[in-house]
């Protein structure tokens, strides 16, 4: 039976055009970009071309603003630790929304252990950052405030421009994790007022193993991985040329096709949401309209998410995600769902579906039916 993949927030296939473009850097073109001979110059050029394409995707001021990394986790670490440590003289406070990805929250907690003061900014029941609280929390000593462009688990898009105004009126720098948002909604770092922005290659149909950090001109950060001084000294280590070249090409395609593809996905998403909310005691998580075009997330009372995931996969060949405790390493339910005010028992029964290029409207009735059958089956087993 054919599989229906609905977990694009976790991993995405590499676009065949990207692979065709970048595979030469695994095969024939292999020089070290730091070498001065012709083989090195060739890969150096590949990286600079990719940098230009990523610059254009987010409308950065110029190419030197883009630092390539190994992925979003490294970009988030570099942004947060690099900025907080470099600007310690100006203050030792950091802040993040309560629904940030763990690769933002954990570096923040590490800073906290070494003497920084960390404050989490609450969100409302739809996942929107509470702006009044943000105003209270960010002060002149707050060197990094980290708020994601859009959330990977509930799809909610933040009003980044407004947030940027608040942060810059009161504190120092705004870091935005755009891993889930890039390639789906337009991002303009200059217009949005962003100082540091995290991007991930695989989340825009590029190869795994590359990411980028945008650093606004004039912002001072320090390296967290010292070494040979690649990437303006901010990220040492021989570049992953294949993944970086692929990320560049993926960024170019994402920019060209975003408008059309996002409209298409929004249509599928809205039908999916309408169909699934017909199931008894089902609820949307996240915001209904301020929502990523490819993102549909729900919770169902009386059942547990890992069971939903297994049943959807084994019986219906549909791959989805859940914020259930049973699928996490900590055995705690999703901190994102809890931050939106859900109780533990409510957060256990969550389902996240993220669409991609392989999905179309024709799949919706089958998917909706599979979810309905799964929920009904598990509720029959449940004593609740």
């Amino acid at each position, binding site marked *: 039976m054919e599989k229906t993949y609905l977990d694009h927030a976790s991993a995405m296939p590499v676009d065949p055009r990207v692979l065709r473009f970048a595979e030469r850097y695994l095969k024939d073109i292999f020089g070290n970009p730091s070498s001065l001979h012709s083989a090195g110059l060739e890969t150096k050029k590949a990286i600079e071309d990719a940098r230009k394409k990523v610059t254009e995707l987010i409308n950065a001021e110029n190419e030197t603003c883009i630092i390539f990394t190994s992925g979003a986790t490294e970009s988030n670490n570099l942004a947060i630790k690099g900025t907080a440590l470099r600007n310690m003289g100006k203050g030792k406070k950091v802040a993040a929304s309560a629904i940030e990805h763990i690769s933002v929250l954990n570096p923040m907690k590490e800073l906290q252990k070494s003497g920084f003061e960390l404050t989490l900014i609450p969100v409302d029941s739809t996942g929107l950052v509470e702006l009044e609280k943000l105003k209270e929390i960010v002060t002149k000593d707050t060197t990094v405030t980290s708020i994601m462009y859009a959330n990977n688990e509930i799809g909610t898009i933040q009003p980044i421009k407004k947030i940027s105004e608040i942060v810059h009126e009161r504190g120092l720098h705004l870091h935005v994790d755009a891993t889930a948002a890039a390639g789906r909604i337009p991002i303009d770092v200059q217009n949005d007022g962003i100082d540091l922005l995290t991007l991930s290659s695989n989340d825009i149909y590029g190869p795994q193993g590359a990411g980028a950090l945008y650093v606004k001109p004039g912002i001072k950060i320090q390296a967290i991985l010292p070494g040979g001084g690649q990437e303006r000294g901010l990220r040492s280590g021989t570049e992953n040329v294949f993944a970086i070249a692929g990320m560049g090409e993926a960024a170019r395609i994402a920019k060209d096709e975003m408008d059309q593809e996002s409209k298409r996905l929004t249509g599928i998403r809205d039908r999916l949401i309408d169909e699934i909310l017909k199931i008894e005691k089902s609820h949307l998580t996240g915001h209904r309209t301020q929502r990523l075009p490819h993102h549909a997330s729900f919770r169902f009372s009386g059942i547990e998410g890992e069971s939903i995931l297994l049943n959807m996969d084994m019986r219906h060949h549909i791959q989805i995600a859940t914020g*259930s405790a049973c699928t996490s390493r900590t055995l705690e339910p999703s901190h994102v769902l809890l931050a939106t005010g859900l109780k533990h028992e409510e957060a256990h029964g969550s389902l996240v579906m993220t669409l991609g290029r392989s999905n179309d409207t024709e799949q919706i009735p089958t998917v909706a039916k599979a979810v309905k059958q799964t929920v009904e089956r598990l509720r029959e087993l449940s004593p609740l």
Partner: protein
Amino acid sequence: MADVGYSKKVLEHFMNPKNVGTIENADGYGKVGNPVCGDLMEMYIKVENDIITDIKFKTFGCGSAIATSSMVTELAKGKHVDEAMKITRNDVADELDGLPPKKMHCSNLAADALQAAIKDYKKKKREE
């Protein structure tokens, strides 16, 4: 076993659990777990001459919670209550060809639910 997922047996019992349901006027009833933690099990037994003649369960929880519930009902059915009382969490996990390590504690409550049901039966019997 490395933490790479479930054994075939766990998945079989998850997909086709045995003895799902409730028993009216059960001779013993046990309930363990808590929906806040993500696992809740209810166990019903029918007992004749101290032999478990019928057993049913209802479980809210993850794949291993459902599979262990199903397995424990299979192990207990037809057994003397004193024998069934000796079934441990490890017995259940072994019969399922193992559970991922982190599931051993949190989602392996089925033996506890069975023991609770047997204790309930014995208590009722004493009161008669």
